[in-house]
């Protein structure tokens, strides 16, 4: 009985469950972690009810239960065991890490004087920097600072360059990271120049605000026909992938031109010029001046269901094949419409067939790869 009272005195966070003091329940706080303890005394012999947190120490507890007959001694040993086993995971003093980060950061700033801007957040957890390349383009880099993980202190979290595996490896040195970033920018110069050439000489539908990452452009030829060109950023002299969007009657013509001229592609010449040669064009059409007052309900090229160009960042992709209709639809919009008039829509396997919501003359069909709609 004395021992039980001593438990109450030494472990005030364990409460007796009954008047005979044979059952205790409560918590042990070791290294800022709470462990749930349910202690049973049978004829003075202690035993523990196991739970998830304690299961890590199961072997020790079993051994302890077998050897120890004194409840107070049992609890003392348990505390000792848990405390010694968890000791290694305690956070160490971070001032060394902070000092390291600050030295790295200041040295870095002083060394690279051509940095456009460079900032570190107040809690030293993030660095944002921008740099200019030789053509005056700005490139941004965001770095996360890790204090706990030992070697890999700096980690690139965001950049706008095309993804490449060997770039953006975590490193203990800021300058190593930055050098890799600069090297990638330098390698990408021909690609970036080419993309700029497209951006300034074409009527671009998508992306709206191109980032270096975006290695494709959707170029409009006129209201009804456009081309998606995708460039390999690391090999931009090669033949880009071309995909035409528009009614079949206009597209097939262009497609045959491309396949005829493909063998004349010159890998050493300027890619922009080669693309024009491929299409037998002297220049790309430029964007027509839009009438400020919107006379039409929806502009050509826009989806005639939601009356907009972009829906969840996607452009209309389905086109009615009726030459006097040629309306565009977002896959999502057309799908929702065909489903909502299910009585008139035919489904075969994963394809939906229904009337074009605009002209109602022809069938539009939709391959249902739309699990997320």
């Amino acid at each position, binding site marked *: 009985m004395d021992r039980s009272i001593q438990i109450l005195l030494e472990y005030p966070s364990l409460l007796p469950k009954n008047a005979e003091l044979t059952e205790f329940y409560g918590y042990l706080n070791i290294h800022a972690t709470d462990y749930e303890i349910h202690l049973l005394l049978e004829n003075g012999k202690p035993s523990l009810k196991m739970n998830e947190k304690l299961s890590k120490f199961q072997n020790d507890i079993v051994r302890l239960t077998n050897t120890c007959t004194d409840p107070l001694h049992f609890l003392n040993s348990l505390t000792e065991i848990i405390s010694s086993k968890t000791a290694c995971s305690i956070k160490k003093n971070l001032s060394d890490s902070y000092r390291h980060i600050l030295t790295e950061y200041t040295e870095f700033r002083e060394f690279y004087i051509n940095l456009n801007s460079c900032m570190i957040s107040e809690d030293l957890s993030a660095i944002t920097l921008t740099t200019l390349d030789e053509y005056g383009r700005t490139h941004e880099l965001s770095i996360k600072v890790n204090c706990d993980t030992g070697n890999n202190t700096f980690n690139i979290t965001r950049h706008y360059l095309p993804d490449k595996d060997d770039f953006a490896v975590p490193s203990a040195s800021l300058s190593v990271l930055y050098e890799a970033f600069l090297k990638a920018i330098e390698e990408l110069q021909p690609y970036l120049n080419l993309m700029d050439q497209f951006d300034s000489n074409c009527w671009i539908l998508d992306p709206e605000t191109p980032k270096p990452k975006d290695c494709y452009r959707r170029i409009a030829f006129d209201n009804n026909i456009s081309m998606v060109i995708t460039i390999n950023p690391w090999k931009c002299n090669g033949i880009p992938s071309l995909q035409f969007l528009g009614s079949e009657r206009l597209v097939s013509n262009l497609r045959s031109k491309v396949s005829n001229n493909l063998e004349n592609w010159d890998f050493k010449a300027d890619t922009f010029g080669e693309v024009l040669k491929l299409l037998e064009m002297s220049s790309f059409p430029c964007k027509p001046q839009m009438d400020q*007052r*919107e*006379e*039409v*309900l*929806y502009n050509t090229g826009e989806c*005639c*269901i*939601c*009356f*907009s160009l972009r*829906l*969840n960042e996607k452009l209309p992709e389905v086109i009615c094949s009726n030459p006097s209709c040629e*309306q565009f639809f977002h896959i999502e*919009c057309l799908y*929702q*419409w065909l489903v*909502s*008039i299910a*009585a*008139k829509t035919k489904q075969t396997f994963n394809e939906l067939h229904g009337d074009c*919501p*605009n002209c*109602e003359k022809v069938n539009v069909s939709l391959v249902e790869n739309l699990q997320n709609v």
Partner: protein
Amino acid sequence: MQKQQRLLREIAKITGSPPKGISLTSKDETLTAFEGSIIGPENTPYYKGIFNLEILIPENYPFSPPSMKFLTKLYHPNIDENGRICLDLIKMPPKGNWKPTIGLEGLLIAVKMLLEHPNPDDPLMMEIAKEFKNDKAVFERKAKKYTEEYAMPK
């Protein structure tokens, strides 16, 4: 999802270049209720009247049609005393002819045309339709009386 964007676009269009004799105003911020007015077209007994309509936009607009009804009373074979309109465009297929490409402006124009050309072969009000077919003068007199009584500012 498409609803908000599309309605904003429709309102911008209709306020930018309003069609003749038709107006549309939003009743609340959420764009779920609109009030439309149609000015009675010339050469009809509705001439000079102003007819107000209530337009309610369903949640899945434009995939289902808005519901429309007249708030102003009028004497017409295809419009009942509660203002309900018999128009195939505001019903879902296969019974009706609603298409997501139509829009509010198109519907208001269609209703205006219904005022100009009643359709007695698909009537909502049997008696009025019979009258319209057999005794047009009486129909016109009654319709005009309704217009003067309910649709003109006093």
